[in-house]
């Protein structure tokens, strides 16, 4: 009986395969960045719904190539029949890696949040080590972390420390303090104006790109909003992307109650990393079945989606100063997968003097931890080629993109200055200067 029950539960946790609705049209094959550059990956049509027909429950995995799925979700978006291709791939990848075992390298890449605090505190030493060629050589040969890849530097103080200590900041509040009457439980397409918002900044903002967090807070405050940081952990996407459902679910189970508390106290939650946002909005509920996610998702907004909502109601601070910059904007895959259009581009286009172009290219090739892996580095670079060429043609001074992975990759590919769009928006708000 126990076996029966646990099997049933597995089924609930993992969505029922809808490979049956694939009409074999191969549109997904035209958008897959991986199969475009390597014959080793058979492409979404075969790897997803196609291979499903060959996988028998109880059989061990043989589809080693499944590990090459970069997790960009472009296939899901292209599918005319709504097949959850990347989820099918992720489940197959999880099964393959569960059986085969994960290298220590993957543990390091997906658990950086455990030592990020320490790394930040000793950032001078950490960064020296991360840049040191000998260390990189060791990481390359022992852990198979590609040595040509720059390892992200740590910053001190962390965003959270900065937020707490800054003189202008209002007293730090824990997420649960209800300051507004409880909002309706139902879905609201646009949440009503509220004086406070909660911010899910993500690990990378906290320890590696603190200025993204600062800019977010500054822009929100310049719009008359008070920012609250609910207690939070890594969203778990690196683990999920590496097929570690259990680990990812653990992170979700820590985050959702805290976010739910914020939502129930009437706050909207904003994220500046589109990957964290995508994880919480879609994967928490769909793949990981974390209770309460639906309610959180209804009040969870991409930072620029939120600003666009303000703008639509005439509440956005648009006292921008002139910024005579030539900028190229790259919409990350996970932003596109959110299905909210390109809000950052819409808002930035309001800035006078800013010459901004959208980069017409698919996936950057980083795929979170994918691009760090020695065996996948070449594929990652090959995918990025199109993007690099597109950027070269535009010849911008600065490249903007909402995802930290994309930012790392574009810096690596082009050597250009690459920022989060909120940083430029902050610069344009003259009164924050």
């Amino acid at each position, binding site marked *: *009986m126990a*076996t029966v029950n646990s099997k049933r539960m597995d089924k609930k946790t993992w969505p029922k395969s809808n490979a049956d609705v694939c009409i074999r049209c191969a549109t997904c094959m035209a958008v897959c960045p991986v199969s475009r550059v390597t014959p080793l990956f058979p492409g979404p*049509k*075969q790897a997803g719904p*196609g*291979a499903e027909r060959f996988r028998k429950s109880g059989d061990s995995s043989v589809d080693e190539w499944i590990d090459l799925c970069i997790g960009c979700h472009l296939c899901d978006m292209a599918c005319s*029949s709504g097949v959850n291709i990347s989820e099918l791939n992720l489940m197959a990848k999880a099964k393959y890696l569960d059986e085969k075992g994960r290298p220590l390298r993957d543990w390091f890449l997906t658990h950086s949040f455990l030592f990020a605090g320490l790394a930040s505190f000793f950032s001078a030493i950490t960064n020296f080590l991360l840049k040191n060629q000998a260390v990189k050589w060791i990481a390359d040969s022992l852990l198979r972390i590609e040595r040509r890849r720059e390892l992200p530097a740590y910053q001190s103080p962390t965003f959270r420390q900065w937020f707490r200590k800054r003189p202008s900041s209002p007293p730090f509040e824990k997420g649960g303090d209800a300051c507004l009457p409880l909002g309706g439980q139902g879905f609201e397409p646009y949440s009503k104006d509220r004086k406070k918002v909660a911010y899910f900044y993500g690990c990378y903002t906290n320890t590696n790109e603190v200025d993204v967090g600062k800019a977010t807070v500054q822009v929100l405050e310049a719009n008359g909003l008070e920012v609250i940081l609910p207690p939070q952990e890594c969203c778990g996407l690196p683990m999920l992307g590496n097929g570690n459902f259990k680990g990812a679910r653990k992170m979700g189970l820590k985050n959702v109650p805290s976010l739910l508390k914020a939502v129930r106290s009437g706050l909207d939650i904003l994220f500046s990393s589109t990957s964290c946002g995508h994880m919480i909005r879609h994967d928490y509920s769909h793949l990981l079945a974390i209770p309460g996610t639906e309610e959180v998702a209804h009040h969870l907004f991409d930072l620029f989606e939120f600003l666009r909502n303000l703008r639509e109601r005439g509440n956005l601070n648009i006292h921008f100063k002139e910024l005579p910059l030539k900028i190229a904007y790259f919409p990350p895959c996970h932003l596109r997968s959110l299905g909210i259009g390109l809000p950052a581009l819409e808002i930035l286009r309001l800035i006078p003097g800013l010459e901004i172009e959208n980069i017409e290219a698919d996936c950057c090739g980083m795929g979170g931890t994918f691009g760090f892996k020695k065996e996948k580095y070449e594929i990652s670079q090959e995918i990025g080629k199109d993007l690099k060429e597109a950027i070269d043609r535009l010849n911008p001074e600065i490249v903007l993109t909402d995802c930290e992975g994309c930012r790392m990759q574009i810096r690596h590919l082009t050597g250009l200055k690459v920022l989060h769009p909120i940083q430029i928006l902050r610069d344009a708000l003259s009164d924050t200067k």
Partner: protein
Amino acid sequence: MKGSMRLQTEVLIIGGGATGVGIARDLSLRGIPSLLIEREDFLSGASGRNHGLFHSGGRYVVSDPEAARECIAENRILRKIVPHCIEETDGLFVSLPEDSLDFRDRFIQACEEADIPAYLLSRDHVLSLEPELNPDLLSAVNVPDGAIDPFELVLANAKDAENRGAKFLLHSEVTSILVEGDRVKNILAKNTLHGEEYLIEASYLINAAGAWADRLLKLAGLRMAMALSKGSMLITNQRLANRVINRCRPPSDGDIIVPNHTVSILGTTSVRLEDLEHFEVTPQEVSLLIEETSKMLPAIEETRLIRAYAGIRPLFQSEGKGDDRAISRGFVLIDHEKRDGIRNLITITGGKLVTYRLMAEKTSDLLCRKMGTDLPCSTHLKPIPAMDAPSNLKDRLKASGEAEILCDCELVRTDEVEKILKEGGVKDLQDILHRTRLAKGTCQGGFCIYRLLGILNEMGLAEGDSNKILRGFLEERWKGIRPVLWGSSIKEEELIESIYKGIFNL
């Protein structure tokens, strides 16, 4: 006859199904030369149009214990001689709340008497083995059923027979049988592709034409009473259960689900038929099959079906009985010397795919007696080498990351098809489809067949009008798809139709 090619053989076998090919191999092992003539390709009749059940005998054990005993004996032999054609899945006879447990107990008893290893499983145990089964089931009996690949089976038999000297003449139809006194003297045949005519002289003639046995005898001025029973089946897009699922009740419509490679096959119906050449699966049959099989596997109600097809059971009728299911599924061996005074003619028909070897053995034994020799049968001892092309699901999935794939749905590799083409012997598209898993998946050849024509063209094998070949294929495909066309299938069909109409201008 003027202009016709003269062929001579000791034994002429008519019919390239499992029985005919089985006889060819049996005779080749005994050292008796034979020629097999087939109107189309191997497996063009019931051998290629069944649910691929590797019978334990359980299905007939209550109604026809004799046939069941034959099944289990052959089941044991085939596991040894053709393991590569068999998936040893086991089968379950499932009792639902509306089914009588008296029948179940009789079933277990009958299995014991027929020497079929059967054991009762509790509801919870069954559900842990096959979680998609109806959770309301009461119990299930496990028997050594399995899945058999009839194509692999017959083609491997043919290849081995050929290596031992047997000859095959495919795509050739017998047009007349000349009887002189108490003997069949000559047989006239015509190649259906090129129109070439043959005059065949044979010392013995074996009629293994299956459902066409009676029609063939008519050419010799003889008759036999046969009941033609159409059995329709549906194919699901994915494999829904790993074991054969039977309903534990007296055989009736829609009581079996057989796993087959990537798919499950839902069967069957039983409809009396007069016309051998034109038959289709009717909407009533489709509804009936879904309704009945989904009682065992509720997922069937929502699953996608990719094809419907029907085969004709050649059932021998000793006297007019009402229900075809009551007619023995055992086989019939007729010595026309005793029956009609024709000394060198034998008819073998009826039976099951799983008893093909036994049928071949009995036929060959009778032939030997007629020839006055006592060469022993050895087909139960000598394994049949595997064909090299098809491999199991795991191997194909693994290889799909390495080689060029021609058929995305069934992961058939381009080099696999090229090899078959290079070996020669394939005359038309249907022949290629019989020898690979091409076009057996989700899109049913919608995307791979035009790719195949490209390969045929490159290899200089595309004879005649490619559009005509495509049209013929599409008509046959349409026949199989139309009965199950709704939901996502219809969406896909629109796409495929626009490809063929828009790009190929068909």
